[in-house]
């Protein structure tokens, strides 16, 4: 298989399989998780819980008081790499085109120099976060194979994408194919690893906000 055939495969059957497994996995896991249901809270609410769940979904995106000072790497590194990923994934014109092709949604892209910068910053932040995971006792203690694995499958698409655009290491065609392949691996493992937090964190925040909102505590 030459590199163009490789690229054609990852753009064709590869992507088909990956998106298929992703969609299948996401739906299966969402049903699996949320169909467990929960008991109705019979205690009289302090005040109607209203939109407390929704509030928490947003509020939890902001660090708690003093949080940044206690764990600067987790918060700042985490912010940078999540926002950086979002910029790279949703701001780069070829990505937008892919999204448009899959969903029909489209928006203007960002200049590639900016995307380039965002990618480098994202990778730097991810490396810092990884070093923090190795250095910080709590994180090292909690870390399992899954943590190292998911870091890798998240990092690789950024790295290969950047290398491809910069024409480094391997010919563009091969690198582009590897980039798409790495994204496919990411899509495939996402529903079955902690990366699924991208979906469940909304539910989690909502439950937490709802339960405590019922008691009158904005969390």
């Amino acid at each position, binding site marked *: 298989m030459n590199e163009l055939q490789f690229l054609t495969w990852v753009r064709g059957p590869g992507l088909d399989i990956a998106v298929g497994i992703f969609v299948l996995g996401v739906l299966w896991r969402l049903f699996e998780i949320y169909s467990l249901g*929960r008991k109705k809270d019979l205690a009289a609410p302090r005040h109607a819980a209203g939109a407390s769940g929704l509030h928490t979904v947003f509020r*939890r995106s902001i660090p*708690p008081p003093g949080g940044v000072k206690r764990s600067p790497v987790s918060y700042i590194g985490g912010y940078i790499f999540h926002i950086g990923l979002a910029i790279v994934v949703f701001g780069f014109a070829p990505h937008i085109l892919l999204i448009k092709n899959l969903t029909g949604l489209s928006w203007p892209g960002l200049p590639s120099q900016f995307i380039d910068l965002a990618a480098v910053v994202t990778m730097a932040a991810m490396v810092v976060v990884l070093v923090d995971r190795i250095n910080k006792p709590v994180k090292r*203690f*909690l*870390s399992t194979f899954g943590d190292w694995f998911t870091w890798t499958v998240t990092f690789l698409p950024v790295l290969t994408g950047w290398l491809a655009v910069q024409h480094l290491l391997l010919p563009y065609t091969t690198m582009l194919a590897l980039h798409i392949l790495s994204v496919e691996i990411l899509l495939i493992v996402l529903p079955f690893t*902690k990366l699924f937090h991208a979906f469940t964190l909304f539910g989690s925040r909502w*439950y*937490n906000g709802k339960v405590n909102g019922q008691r009158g505590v904005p969390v």
Partner: protein
Amino acid sequence: MSASLEKGINALKQVIDAPIASYFNSCVHCGLCADACLFYTETGDPKYTPIHKLEPLRRVYEQEYTLLGRLKKVVGLSKPVTDDELDQWQSLVYDSCTMCGRCSMVCPVGNDIVYMVRKFREGMAASGHVPDGIKGATQRTVEIGGPMGLKWPAVANVIRKAEEATGLAIPVDKEGADYLVLLSSMEIVNFPEYLEALAKIFSKAGISFTLASDAFEATNAGIQIGNSDIAKVIVSRIVDAAEKLKVKNVLSPECGHAYMAIRWEGPNLIGRPFTFNVVHVLELLDELRLKGVLKMKSTFKEPLILHDPCQIVRRGGVLQAAEPLIQQVADNYIPIVDKQKWNWCCGGGGGASAIHTDEAEALRAKVFQVKKRQIEEAGVSTMVTFCANCRIVMEEGVDHYEMDTKLLGLTELLAEHLED
């Protein structure tokens, strides 16, 4: 698998629900919950990271309720939970977790970790992995009536003394009263002034109240040990008494987890909404303050800080009542940085104060340093709280570090300065 372990696992299978599934799937092992837990911040030992305390529960969830987990269990990638393991986890779930719920406030993905600890304790209790101290307290509550083994005659004695001291009648088993007053054993034994204060305030406000001879104890060791069956037995006494006496409200005493047990868990334990309201004494006092009934004859001059009990404030939702009340009675109230829903636990909640092993007591003393720091930073020698358990635990801490800090109950402080 032993019968008790099977029972424990079965209990976990019952309590695992969509929120727990969502929480475990959301956890990214960021470890930020450790920063919120005084057992970690004061010891620096990563095993106290809140989410780690739930590892057996996570595995049961994964093995029982996810397809991949079942597969992993079949091929041996995920080991079943054993008695040994639960034994090991017992100290993590009871000794080093006060269910203060601070971790639930900080988790960036929104996990309500304390919610899961509460559920995990169901399995721990059903499989018999509970510390002797809490076990004893539970036993006494079920068999005798209160965690300290207190019986009605002792209460009647306190009532008589209060009547003598105040010259007011304290009704018992009176039907149709506005409030059914509950007490906690600790108050009966250590702070009998509480009842006197209430009698004065009720009389001034013209509110009728009563005590119930078959339901005076507000605390609920079943909640602490984490067993709904036992907790239901205990809470039913109050519900039955309140309904028999046809009271409009049940007044929860200062005690933190008692409020949690009656106000928030009670209806869920008996499986139906209450026919009466549950009111925390501070909520009532604050209401009276707003009505202008709560007039002070004098004020407390010394500078003081406030310790917000977790179960009443962060987990119970009585967020705002304490501050205006304390400002009413104290000239020199100093608000601390981590207050109200961000307060730090006394270190003895969730039943932890009932565990009297050497390790547990040493650990409690160690984590008290967080409160010690708060007291020292504020530079005060008085700390006010409104939970009898917090107060006792902190008094022990103050003794341990040989500090000259005085602990006061808020209701008691108010009563002392109340206009006659």
